[in-house]
């Protein structure tokens, strides 16, 4: 560990004083992107908070200002409790699992093993599949006649054959499994580019000390990638939390009953299916707050140890 610590340059050690003019010119580089971003994001952001204060059934219906009424209602709404639990379960399982697997795979990929090009291409699959394609694929995988059950029968595990998406427990497990499947891919690619950036000298030095890949991975690469892992973790936390809307929509539409509804799915379901746009936006505000809290949490966690 001590050599690793010596290698990682502490952030604070960076020279922070620069000529004032250069600083300004550098900041100007960010201005177009910031302006662009503001032009398209400020609207939704303001709308999010304003609409959450309305009793507003649907796009075409009149709205009424009710202050924090939507939020008060949420406190006693069992549907929200269920969705919050599901979201917590999903994020709690997917993010840590994904981080460990994708770091290891990323390390493996950075060694450029035989077939790494194919592997790299395959890792884009989850982003490659459009909504239409995903909907088709999930049916093929989880339907009673589908791939999972066919594999179980083939392995002689016929007693485990079940309609996966139709009972609360297994349906949520499917959503989590697909979440991991999809999250690992992109994270692996991100870790691979980061680990490839680690100086070969560092790796070489540890090799002379007789380190195998396992200890190199955990004792050299991991500490160096620690802060980057925080970034990946944060990104995936947000993607899993917010992206579950589409995933749930495609897999179970929140069913059976409401057993697989997540907070992000409720934003869609409440606004579009249940004719309560205002309430849906209030759920979105809650998600926003959870998102900010999670980001701060993850940042603190991954900063504390560097």
């Amino acid at each position, binding site marked *: 560990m001590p050599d690793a610590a010596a290698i990682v340059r502490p952030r604070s050690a960076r020279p922070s004083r620069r000529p004032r003019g250069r600083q300004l010119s550098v900041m*100007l580089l960010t*201005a*177009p992107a*910031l*302006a*662009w971003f*503001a*032009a398209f994001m400020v609207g939704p952001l303001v709308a999010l908070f304003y609409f959450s204060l309305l009793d507003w059934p*649907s*796009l*075409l*219906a009149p709205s009424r200002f009710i202050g924090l009424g939507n939020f008060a209602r949420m406190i006693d709404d069992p*549907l929200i409790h269920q969705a919050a639990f599901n979201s917590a379960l999903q994020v709690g399982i997917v993010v840590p699992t994904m981080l460990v697997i994708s770091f290891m795979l990323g390390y493996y990929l950075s060694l450029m093993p035989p077939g790494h090009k194919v592997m790299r291409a395959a890792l884009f699959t989850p982003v490659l599949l459009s909504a239409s394609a995903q909907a088709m694929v999930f*049916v093929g995988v989880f*339907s*009673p*006649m589908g791939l999972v059950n066919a594999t179980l029968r083939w392995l002689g595990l016929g007693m485990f054959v*079940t*309609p*996966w*998406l*139709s*009972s609360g427990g297994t349906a949520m497990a499917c959503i989590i499994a697909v979440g991991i499947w999809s999250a690992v891919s992109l994270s692996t690619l991100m870790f691979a580019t980061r680990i490839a950036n680690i100086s070969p000298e560092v790796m070489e030095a540890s090799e002379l000390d007789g380190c195998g890949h396992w200890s190199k991975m955990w004792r050299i690469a991991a500490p160096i990638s620690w802060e980057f892992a925080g970034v990946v973790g944060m990104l995936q936390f947000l993607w899993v939390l917010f992206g579950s809307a589409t995933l749930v*929509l495609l897999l179970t*539409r*929140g*069913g*059976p*009953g*409401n057993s697989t509804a997540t907070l992000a799915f409720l934003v869609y*379901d409440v606004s*579009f*299916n*249940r*004719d*309560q746009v205002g309430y849906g936006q209030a759920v979105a505000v809650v998600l926003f707050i959870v998102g900010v809290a999670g980001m701060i949490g993850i940042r603190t966690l991954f900063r504390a140890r560097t």
Partner: protein
Amino acid sequence: MNRIAKYASLGVATGALLLGSIAAASAADLVILTSWTKGDARRPALDKIVEGFTKQTGITVEIDASSNEGGAIASVYETSLLAGKEADLVLASLEGKLLDWAKRKAVVPVNDFVAAWGLDKTIPVDAIADWTDSDGHVEGLPYLKFTWPWWYNTTLLKQAGVNAVPKTVDELIAAAKALRKAGIEPVTIGGSDWSGEKMMLQIVQSYMPRDEAKKVLSTGGYCANADAMKGVNLLVRLRDEGVFVDGVQGLTSNDATAAFMTGVAAISSMGSWSYKDGEGIAASVTLAGFPAVDGGAYSKPTYYTGATLSGWFVTPAGAKKLDAIKKLVQFVYAPEQLGTLIDHTGAIPVVNVDPKLVAQKAGSTMMTKSMAELPGTVDAAVMPDVWVPGPVTEALYRATSIVFTNGNGPGKVCAALDEAYKK
């Protein structure tokens, strides 16, 4: 930050100026938004009819199709309305959010047009009733109807030693047991989607008089209604006696249709849109209903029928082009055009066309059977889609799996149904 803000507003303003002119209006005189996508069997007929209309009148028509997956057509239309860029007519099913369109002024009620355009003698009164909302608006012009019977594969039933289509619930249970013994799947249905929802509500309303069924379907309260609970108990009994295939709660309508059409399952419930695909096994199929129960609300087996399958909504934009729309509407309801529409598409117009003609034109044995076998032998149950409120629809679909899962007792079943109605 000032410079940034200036930069931003300047950029956005120039962009808007440059591109504002790009938005192109449709070149056609009339625009129809429809859920009849190219994958829909009726679409070629519609294209042909519209082509003929343009030839005759010189009025050009553009057809824009949207997938209606998850009720998407409502979002597409409502947003375009907000932008003032809506189509002139919408051709779609009356269900979900569309049930509230007239109330929310998303479409123009057609109450006055029916007579003014001479359609009062063409469109039957009960079809208009299906399209009338609780405020008395006729939401659109009913165009196509459906029949939705139970399909019995008599060849498979015979293989299992069952020689007649079950007429009572006990016979249905006995048939299912015999089928299972013969290695044939009994009743199959999409127990996780809309098709299962229809079957479940059909069984649940067995003991409810029509008005009571309408009330419960629109407001819920299944657990509190004695007749509804009798129906729930019946459904649970059927399920626990093994009437439905194993794992039915996980099936979709596609799974069920495929299983029935390939002779894997012997009984299912499918709408008239499937008649065309049933051609392969038509010789084995008898169309009937769900058996009537003792002391129930119906004396004959029940099926669904309704005029809500497709209809024409007139939009605010369309209201400014009523002359052209009147011509188009009169054209599409003309017997000759209806002939084109039913030609090998499985469509059934709401207007009173000679059933023999429909059967013959459809070129489908199943359609002929439905025209011959159904009238007089079945009663129409209350069609849920007209009564279940839009915001409840999706939640009821999701409750379906719970209802079809073994081990869930009547209390849990009715609670799952009531849960869907919670605001």
